[in-house]
Each structure stands twice: as C-alpha cells, then as structure tokens.
C-alpha cells in the first residue's frame, strides 16, 4: 500500500509526463506523416527529445559475438536504422557520424557521454550470435539521459532483416503506440524475368506476381505461368495474394495461398474476371467481370459462391475498393464519359459520384479505418498524379506533382504511407511516400513494376 503523499507525487509525475508527451505528439503531428497516434501504455519508458522536437535516435552496428555473425550484425543495425527512420516518429542520427563514439563491446560499456555529445536521446545497443543457421539477436533501447534500459529483448531468427523489422515494430509500439509497417510486404506485377509470351505476336512480355519486404528487399516470385499476371492484392491475413491471370488465355481471378503452395480459381471461368480485392474482414471479394456482356462490379464469397452484381450500367465499371467497414465500395465508371470515381453500397444502392473536378480518375483505394479518405490517380498535364479525396470534407489534396506519371496508389495498413507506381526514374517503378506526399522512396529497380498492394 502506498501512502497518500507518495500517491499524490506519483500522480503529479504522471500528469507532467502525459502533458509533456502530448506536447511532443502534437508537435510531431505537424511534421510527421500523421495518422492515428495514441498514448503508449507505459509513459515512464518513453524517451523524449528536446521540447517540440522528435527524440534523436542512434543505431550503431550491432556487435558480432562470433566472427561468422559479422554480416548479420551489420545488416540488423542498418535495417533497424532504416525501419525506425521510416515512420518519421524519431530523428535518426546518420550512421556516418558515429565514428567519434567509442564502440561498446557489451551493454555495460555504452559510452553515454559520447552519445549525448552527438545529441542522441536514445541509443540502441545490440549483439548477434550465430549458431548453425540460427541467429540470437539481443537488443536494448537505452535512454541516454537517464542511462536506463527501456526496452530489452532477445530474438532467435534465421533472417537478420526480420529481426530488425520486429525490433522496429516493437519499439514503435512501445514508444509511440504506433503500428509500424516494418514486417509488412508489398505485392506487385513485374516483367523483370524478361521472358516473352509464346506466340506469333511480337512485344508481349511475361508479367509475373512478386512480393517483397515493405522496403523492396527480399523479392520473391509468386507466379510462374509465363503469361500475363497483374493487379495483385493481399488477403487481410497476408497469407494469400489474389490477382488477374491470363494463364487460360481468358483473364480470370486466381488466388495463391503463398505459404501453402495452393492455387485457387474462385471465379472458375465465368466470363472474363479482373481486379479482385478482398473485403476488410477477408470473407468476400469484389471484382470486375464481363459475364453479363459489359464490365460491371460484382461481389462474391472468397470461395466463389454467392456472386452478386453491384453495378448495372452500359458504361464500363472497374477498379473496386472496399470501405473499411465493408459496407460500401468505391469504383471507377465511365458512365458519364471519362472515367470518374463513384461510391455505392455493396447492395447496389446509394450510388454517388465523388470526383467532380477531374478530367479522368481511376484506381480508388480506400484508406484503412481511422482515415476516411480515398486515394486515386487523376489525369494531370504530364500524365497522372496521386490525389486523395477526404470523404467527410469532400476536399481533394494532391500528393504528387508531375514527376513522371504516377498511378495505382495503395495504402500501408497504418494509413501513414502510400505505395504507387511512377515513371520518374525512367521505367515504371514502385515508390512509397508519406500520406502527405513527402519522403518519396524508390522500392523497385529491376524491370518494370506495376500495381502495388501493401499487406497488413
């Protein structure tokens, strides 16, 4: 039992800390990518920076406890720096400035004074030990001012990048109550294997579905049909990728259960079927089909049962996307002439057009819950640019400004980033940017790459 005085003092400290933290969070939101920010569960562990500025983090190389762990130790440190930098919640001190700081070989030797001199509020100390295929990664997050460890954990992994991704997500969770995206994946279509489709017609390059880490590392090929495989989307549990495939000449929807090696074909050749997209609860799929003679939007259960037509118009309807509560769809229709974005209830009622001042708009992508907005590609003088429509205010903001042509926006699961395609670096490549259009990063570099989808 605590006495009243002690309790009162404790309360005062908590209130002060909360106020300080709130101040920091508010200051953050002005410059960070924004998105739903909550209070961390244990404020006493939160490392803050100088008032009004984000805390400054240093992530030096991890210490290899055996010579064969040297490469892995370097990878973990570098990837963790990148991961922590990605959400812009912390200021990551560049690694090439660490030369003046003595290297600590153990957690007891961390040179706090030298880190403080470099301006660090937080420093990561980690070790990597290798035994056979396994890596034991130990990590501590240290408060440079108090010299206390606020996060300490040990991981057993085979993939050093996954260790770094996991640490980053857990630090974001603990320090910012933020769902990081370091362990999420991207799926996309690519011609990087440079094969041609068999047949007498020239210039037909094979496109296959690939997946990679959120930062583009560790790309893996998912399809091998040596044909056209496009418009992949993740299932909400991130264990399946649905896509449009021409493997039977007529385009149809296929699903790869990527960790089981199972291929499914829920639409079973009922006409041409394109552009699948999972409902947020993962039980249904919306898609475009010509089964009734014209491109229309349909909804079905993921096993292909209970197909229901949502749209009914002689114009073309395409590109469905689900609202976070699964009750509405946004889609593209050329019923008024040029393609525009519409919203409709899943039962086909309450149709309304939301883009009114664009000459051409497509690929609506509804943001995850908490952000009631829809990103899309709009025609601009140089091609296309990514814009975002706020469903509540009905205002539209523009995120890209004519650097190449920019298409196919896809939200990260925490809503703070978008992946999209751009020709700004030459060929068609996948990039990511923050929700306000900043911090553009090139994700793919091999071949051409299209239609990204970001996993949960």
């Amino acid at each position, binding site marked *: 039992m605590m006495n009243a005085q002690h309790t009162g003092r404790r309360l005062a400290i908590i209130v002060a800390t909360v106020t300080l933290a709130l101040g920091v969070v508010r200051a953050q939101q002005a410059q960070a990518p924004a998105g739903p920010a909550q209070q961390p569960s244990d404020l006493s562990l939160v490392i803050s920076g100088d008032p009004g500025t984000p805390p400054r983090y240093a992530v030096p190389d991890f210490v290899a406890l055996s010579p064969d762990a040297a490469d892995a130790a370097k990878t973990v440190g570098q990837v963790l720096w990148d991961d922590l930098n990605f959400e812009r919640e912390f200021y990551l001190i560049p690694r090439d400035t660490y030369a003046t700081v003595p290297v600590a070989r153990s957690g007891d030797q961390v040179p706090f004074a030298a880190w403080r001199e470099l301006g660090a509020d937080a420093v990561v100390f980690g070790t990597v030990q290798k035994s056979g295929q396994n890596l034991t990664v130990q990590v501590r997050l240290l408060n440079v001012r108090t010299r206390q460890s606020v996060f300490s954990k040990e991981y057993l992994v085979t993939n050093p990048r996954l260790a770094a991704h996991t640490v980053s997500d857990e630090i974001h969770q603990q320090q910012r109550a933020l769902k990081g995206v370091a362990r999420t994946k991207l799926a996309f279509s690519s011609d990087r294997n440079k094969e041609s489709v068999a047949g007498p017609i020239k*210039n037909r390059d094979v496109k296959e579905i690939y997946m990679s880490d959120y930062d583009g590392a560790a790309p893996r090929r998912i399809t091998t049909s040596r044909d056209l495989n496009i418009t992949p989307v993740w299932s909400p549990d991130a264990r399946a990728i649905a896509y449009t495939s021409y493997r039977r000449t007529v385009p149809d929807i296929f699903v790869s259960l990527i960790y089981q090696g199972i291929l499914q074909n829920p639409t079973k050749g009922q006409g041409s079927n394109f552009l699948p997209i999972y409902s947020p609860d993962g039980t249904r799929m919306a898609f475009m089909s010509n089964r009734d003679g014209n491109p229309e939007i349909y909804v079905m259960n993921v096993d292909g049962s209970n197909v229901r037509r949502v749209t009914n118009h002689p114009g073309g309807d395409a590109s469905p996307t689900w609202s976070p509560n699964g009750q509405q769809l946004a889609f593209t229709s050329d019923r008024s002439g040029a393609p525009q974005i519409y919203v409709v209830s899943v039962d086909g009622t309450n149709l309304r057009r939301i883009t009114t001042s664009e000459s051409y708009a497509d*690929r609506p992508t509804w943001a995850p819950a908490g952000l009631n907005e829809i990103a899309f590609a709009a025609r601009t003088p140089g091609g296309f640019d990514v814009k975002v429509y706020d469903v509540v205010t009905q205002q539209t903001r523009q995120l890209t400004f004519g650097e190449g042509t920019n298409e196919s926006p896809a939200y990260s699961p925490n809503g703070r980033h978008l992946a999209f395609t751009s020709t700004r670096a030459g060929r068609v490549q996948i990039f990511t940017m923050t929700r306000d259009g900043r911090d553009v990063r090139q994700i793919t570099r091999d071949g051409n790459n299209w*239609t990204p989808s970001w996993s949960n």
Partner: protein
Amino acid sequence: MRRPFLLVLTLFIAVAIVGCGKKKPPIVQPAPPPATASTPQSAAPPPQRVEEPLPVPQQPLSEDAIGNRSLDDLNRDSPLKPALFALDSAELDDMGRATVQANAEILKKYPTWQVTIEGHCDERGTAEYNLALGERRAVAVKTYLVSLGISADRLRTVSYGKEFPFEPAHNEDAWSKNRRGHFVITSK
C-alpha cells in the same frame, strides 16, 4: 480426385474427334476397279498390287492465298486488320467500321474460322480502368461483327488493357496503333 481429370480427358478426346471429323469432309471418289487375276498359274505371279484411295489435300479455292497458311503465319501477318480507336473511346468511328466490315467479308469467306478479338489501349490511360476500356473496345467490335451477320459463336473477346502494347514507343504514332481491337484467328 481423379474423376474430374478423367472427365476432362474424355471431353477433350471427344472434342478432338468431333473436331477432326468436321475439318475433313469425306472425299467422294470412284471406287478403284477390282483387281483381276488373269495371269496363268504356271508363271510366277507378279506381286499383287494392293491399294486403297488416299485422301487428297483439299484444293484451295480459286485465287486463295490465305486459306493455305498456318494459324501462326496468318496471325503474324493477318488478313484481318485491327480496328483502331480514338483516345479514351470505345466507339468505332467510320474508319473502324470500314475495317470491321472488310474483316466481316473475310470471315464470311472462311466460315470455319474462330476469332478472338483483343481489346487494347495505349499507355495514356490508367492500368486498371484500361482493362474495362479494352473490354468495351473488344465488345464494340464483336457487336458490330454480329450485326454484319457473323455468328457470335465464332467470336470471343479478351481485354488486355495497356498490358501488351504493339508499338513500344511513347509517341502519337505508337499510341494510335496501340488503341485497337486486334483480331487473332484461333482456329480455321
């Protein structure tokens, strides 16, 4: 688990047999005269000539340089010309209709041909919507062909959006060629 496979195999064989039957109509030729044994018994008999009629390759129709070509050859340099479309449009203009009319005449001349109409778009539209636009272009061509008397059973549509441009360049000339209803002969 094996039954569907067997069913598919059986269907496939059945279709193949029916298909073959259709392709080569029986050729009516006079029966060969019966062989007569007129040589005397004493001499060594010359070997008996045993023959049956062989089907002769079908005569090409007069001045038919097209009907003889293989499917791949036909599709490499097709007598069926692509119907071209205006930017963002899925409607056949006068030139597009004239092209489809000419193709309809050829399809009437070769009534066994089956055709896939591919809908294609140029790169100036978005990847996703272009799948719908390509579909609408292919359907526009098919609908017009049907109105000209070509059976819908012979026509299939496939939209390729902007995935398979015919001309890789990024200019007006390439774009105009990439907005097309492209004809692929899938069976003769």
